[in-house]
């Protein structure tokens, strides 16, 4: 059964059609790649899925529920988490706090209990921290848990974004150019990490990436966008040899 389904999702900004009638389905456990040249509408797709923008027309459903136009925080609550292309960490917070913040949805105690520092709030606090530490271990950041997140190196910030997204315990994880700015070795590690996240944490992964080799080696299905429209969809082998994709990337006429 499909987990996420876009049905002719379209968004216009003024006269510009950023995403035009894009439809695809992602099944549970997929490692799904979304690629395309700059300005193809990939991030906009992410913004539509996560509720940052509301589609002009079309429908998006998640786990059988229509989530078109649902506010971002509710979508997160339903089980979609994301990272950002231009890193958006909570800069002045520590690495650990960043991850704990994303545990917000799992708060069971009320805010009043926090105000009066009741035992339940203290206990929950400890528990969230413990869980966050575990996630930091997954992305290999446990040793910098108390460092301010803006002081981290670039690659670490990207990994922290992933840990933070995972802390919402999503079913679907959206990664927006997770390998950007990483060196080949870091990319290798990231590749293994994403696979591990999918296999051990039962998350479906949808990722945007520019690095072809990275996408081809990681993803099982790839969807290619150009100028807001679908130009190709299929397994890596198919996409690699598709003349339209080659043209889009090399800028040749079809």
């Amino acid at each position, binding site marked *: 059964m499909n987990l996420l389904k876009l049905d002719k999702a379209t968004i216009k900004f003024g006269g510009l059609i950023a995403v035009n009638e894009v439809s695809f389905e992602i099944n549970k456990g997929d490692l799904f790649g979304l690629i395309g040249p700059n300005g193809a509408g990939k991030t906009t797709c992410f913004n539509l899925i996560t509720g940052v923008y509301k589609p002009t027309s079309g429908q998006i459903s998640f786990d059988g529920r229509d989530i078109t136009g649902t506010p971002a925080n509710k979508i997160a609550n339903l089980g979609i988490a994301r990272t950002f292309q231009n890193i958006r960490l909570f800069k002045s*917070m520590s690495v650990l706090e960043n991850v704990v913040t*994303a545990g917000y949805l799992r708060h069971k105690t009320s805010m009043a209990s926090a105000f009066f520092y009741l035992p339940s*709030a203290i206990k929950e606090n400890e528990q969230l921290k413990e869980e966050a530490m575990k996630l930091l271990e997954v992305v290999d950041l446990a040793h910098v848990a108390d460092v301010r997140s803006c*002081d981290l190196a670039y690659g670490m910030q990207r990994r922290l974004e992933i840990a933070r997204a995972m802390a919402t315990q999503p079913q679907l994880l959206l990664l927006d150019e997770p390998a950007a700015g990483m060196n080949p070795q870091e990319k290798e590690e990231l590749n293994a990490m994403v696979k591990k996240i999918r296999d051990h944490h039962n998350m479906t992964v949808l990722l945007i990436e520019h690095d072809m080799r990275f996408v081809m080696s990681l993803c099982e299905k790839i969807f290619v966008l150009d100028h807001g429209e679908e130009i190709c969809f299929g397994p890596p082998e198919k996409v690699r040899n598709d003349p339209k994709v080659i043209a889009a990337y090399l800028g040749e006429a079809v």
Partner: protein
Amino acid sequence: MKFLATRVLSILAAIGFSFLVQKLAEGQDSFTQQLLVLASLYVTLSVSLNLINGITGQFSIGHAAFYQVGAYAAAYCGTAFYPNWHGSPVVWLLLMLVVGGIVAAIAGFIVGLPSLRLKGDYLAVVTMGFGEIVRIVVQNQKVLGESGGLSVHPHLQQIWVVVLLAILCIALCRNLQITAHGLPFLAVREDEVASAAMGVNVTKTKVIAFVLGSGFAGAAGAAYALQLGAINPDLFRMDQSFIILTMVVLGGTGSVTGSVLAALLLFYIPEKMRDLSDVRLSVLVSILISVGFAVAAVRYVINNVHKPIKVRAAYYAGITAVTAVVITILGKILQLVPAFQTSVEGGKLRLVVFAGVLIVLMLIRPEGIFAHHEFSWDWLLSPLKKKRTKLPGVSA
């Protein structure tokens, strides 16, 4: 069990402290008592604004409005209902704190709504505007005494109540900060889009910050009204909001202890200036000039001298000494100029000094006294520790 014991003890300590302040104040003259009351109120106001401005990052510069709403709510209730009140006046006072808090919280809710659409400077303008509207509307209401104000019944000077209010406000904010519930507030300040993507209900968080922050300001207002005995709209002008805002920023945005310290400092300095004797203009001008240069020198050291803290401390001491000498010499020289021989009333200097301290502190420490830290002895002593812990695994 341990929890219960510490909790009971800390509550008792807070109440004990409040009554201790009350006892100590009883021996003093009424002016000193008034000062204590005001100092506690300013602590409450700045800590509560810090919740909105510092912690949640919603740029509000109309805090005096909530203070005013609370004060007028208490004053109005006093006129309308106190004559039929048969309980103890102290209970009435506590009741009024609650009433003032609730009415102001409602106002805060209304003002919080625009914050859902507006950001930064625009929100600042709207909150400032709200503050002015409240003041002007009150000024035009017959029931609220127009610009003459209202006298408040009962007139009660209970210092322990305001001290306890301040402590409660600090404690609540502090508790919020050290539990996971406080993180969404910070997250909203840092990045709204990312917060929402992590499931944080941005709307709810902002509104809670506004409601709580303004509620405390309202309670402070109610306490103020009852302690003062008479209120008028002029007590809640825009510069009041500015003063409270300044306390927050000066203490370090987001730092509760910083807000407390800055509130006391900024309240203490101008009050101390009240009984300053006349100052010669020559001295004043020489201070003005030398402090200007001293600030430039300190800024130079901050930006260009990358030496251990002890060395820099020596630089600062040197600058202070030179400044003191220059003030004396320059003062003597200027004294020879006839135009500078007049004297200035010390009282007039109150707000000039306030503004001067503000500018100087901002120039040499723009992140506020405590920056985003909270006061702790470890933090205070950290520069003195030789070993600087290196961040593991952080590359340049």
